[in-house]
């Protein structure tokens, strides 16, 4: 017996003509959790969401909501509600009638459904605008109307397609915390599609990161941020530097790894690596320190400072190294200003061996949210 809002996705694929948008995805989203699907545009996250909502039919596989197979159940009777990216508010209906719409198609009487819709509007603090039409509302107000319209049917699952993307920065942060508060209050499952990583980290109990129609990694945000599965996840989530190298001999303190510029690193001896193997590993940007460029030490990378940005609580230093990506170091401002650097200076970034996180996945995409 499954809980009411639990979603299970079994071997789901979706093809549009010859294009495979979603490939053989298996997923489980626990009831009452806040789940964020994250990935660049075109990664299949919206298609997956629309399949859960019933707006697209899977080419193969099953979708279960609350333990019930809903793969062939029409939209609107599977206990889900979708909030559209552009809100899709009906332009010819008042705010109140927009919210009452799903009650109207169920055949409820006018007075009853308006009462119920008004209660929902109060909940999102918009009852004073009930008689307006959507065109007269601001973006933030439209978003709340869309939310109220989706919630009025008491869905087990609320699906949100890029719900914050149309708002300006300030409103986005406010609505973000409001969404989280609402989800906690209602206790239903939220599935939220986004391409911005901070949004996912801030909101989610479970982050699902996708690329090219497959799930790259799924788990708690901290796990994904700290222990990315592949170079792609590390880059997309941010906060990490990705380093490529070749495995050398295994010593008592781990495997020796060397990169093209002969920088030397160490990876955990418990890993199953073979000599000569190409490997990738990640180092958190806030885990490294800078040392002057003279001499060589283990687990350090040499580079030339390209850019220094003061960010308030920390200072971001970008190094040009032999690696493809810039190597970024986040230093606390106290630490940085104790020994300030200059652009053009050659330095070493150095960090403890246990900071090295081996990346077992092979996806090496750039992790650019726009999909380039």
């Amino acid at each position, binding site marked *: 017996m499954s809980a009411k809002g639990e979603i299970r996705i079994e071997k789901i694929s979706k093809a549009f003509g010859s294009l495979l948008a979603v490939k053989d995805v298996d997923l489980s989203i626990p009831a009452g959790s806040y789940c964020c699907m994250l990935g660049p545009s075109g990664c299949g996250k919206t298609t997956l969401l629309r399949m859960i909502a019933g707006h697209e039919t899977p080419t193969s596989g099953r979708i279960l909501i609350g333990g019930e197979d809903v793969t062939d159940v029409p939209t609107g009777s599977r206990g889900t509600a979708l909030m559209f990216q552009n809100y899709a508010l*009906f332009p010819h209906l008042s705010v109140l009638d927009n919210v009452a719409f799903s009650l109207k198609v169920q055949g409820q009487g006018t007075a009853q459904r308006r009462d119920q819709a008004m209660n929902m509007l109060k909940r999102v603090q918009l009852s004073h605008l009930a008689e307006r039409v959507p065109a007269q509302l601001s973006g933030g107000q439209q978003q709340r109307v869309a939310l109220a319209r989706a919630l009025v049917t008491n869905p087990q699952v609320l699906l949100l397609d890029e719900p914050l993307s149309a708002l300006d920065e300030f409103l986005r942060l406010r609505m973000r915390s409001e969404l989280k508060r609402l989800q906690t209050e209602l206790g239903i499952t939220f599935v939220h599609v986004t391409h911005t990583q901070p949004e996912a980290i801030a909101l989610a109990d479970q982050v699902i990161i996708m690329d090219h129609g497959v799930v790259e990694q799924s788990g708690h945000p901290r796990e994904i941020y700290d222990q990315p599965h592949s170079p792609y996840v590390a880059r997309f989530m941010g906060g990490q530097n990705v380093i490529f190298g070749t495995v050398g001999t295994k010593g008592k303190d781990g495997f020796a790894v060397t990169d093209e510029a002969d920088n030397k690193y160490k990876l955990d001896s418990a890993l199953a690596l073979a000599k000569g193997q190409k490997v990738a590993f990640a180092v958190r940007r806030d885990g490294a320190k800078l040392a002057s460029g003279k001499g060589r030490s283990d687990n350090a990378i040499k580079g030339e400072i390209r850019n220094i940005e003061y960010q308030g609580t920390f200072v971001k230093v970008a190094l040009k190294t032999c690696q493809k990506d810039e190597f970024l170091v986040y230093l606390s401002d106290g630490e940085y200003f104790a020994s300030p650097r200059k652009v053009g200076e050659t330095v070493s970034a150095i960090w403890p061996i246990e900071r090295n996180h081996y990346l077992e996945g092979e996806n090496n995409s750039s992790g650019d949210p726009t999909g380039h």
Partner: protein
Amino acid sequence: MQSSSPKRKTSFYLLAGFFGLFILFLYGPMLSIFILSFQGVQGSMTFPLRDASTHWFGDLFTSTRYGDLGGAFRRSMIMAIAALALTAVICFFAGLAFRKRFWGSGPIFYLAIVSLVIPGLLLSFGIGQMFQLSGMPLHWMISGLGAHLSWTLPFGLLIMFAVLNRFDSSWEEAARDAGATPSQILRYVTLPILFPGLIAVALFGFTLSYDEFPRSLLTLGTRNTLPLEVANMTSSVTTPALYAIGTITTVISLVVIAVAFSAIAIVQRRRSKRMATS
């Protein structure tokens, strides 16, 4: 730079003058036949207006010289109303269909465009011959209405395309998400949102049929519509009665246009008025 430079001002006045002359060119002749339709009994077909009267309007209804004007008017009205209804309904659904790609959508679209640009007389001739060669009698409500639809439907379709350009199909998806059935989506969402555009389609359906001349010419059979009667009168009638009938049919057209425009304005006013009540 708004009109601060004197050069811009001159060009503005020159263009405004040109535009004014164009409006005069469009409406002046029409206005003159309105005036001359009130010509006195002794008055001629040209100015000046002598002893203004409504004699020639009365003459239209009482004299037998003008043939079956009443019947022609009745038939024109029936056809125009039928064309209005059929054009609106057929183009509404066809427009919805053309949002998707389907087998045959290209040929149907091109057929509509061909019908739009082909000389009306040719199509009239073709339709007339098609009926005669297949042994079917020409009838104004069958071959005639078909010929009119060949003219109103392509226009209606193009207007539906323009209207649907601003229609967001996620409205329909949102309705489906709320549990609406296909017929509920049509009644509560698609139709009401598209309604003002549909009035425009209907206006084209009515006026294009009501004034249609070349396509009616060889397709009506034994009975005439009003434009055909009027066209015949241009060679046979040499009194201001010709202007009187012109005035009457133009006034009818103008009333229909006014009704359609007001209907669109009322619907749109209602949609934005809600602000005032809150």
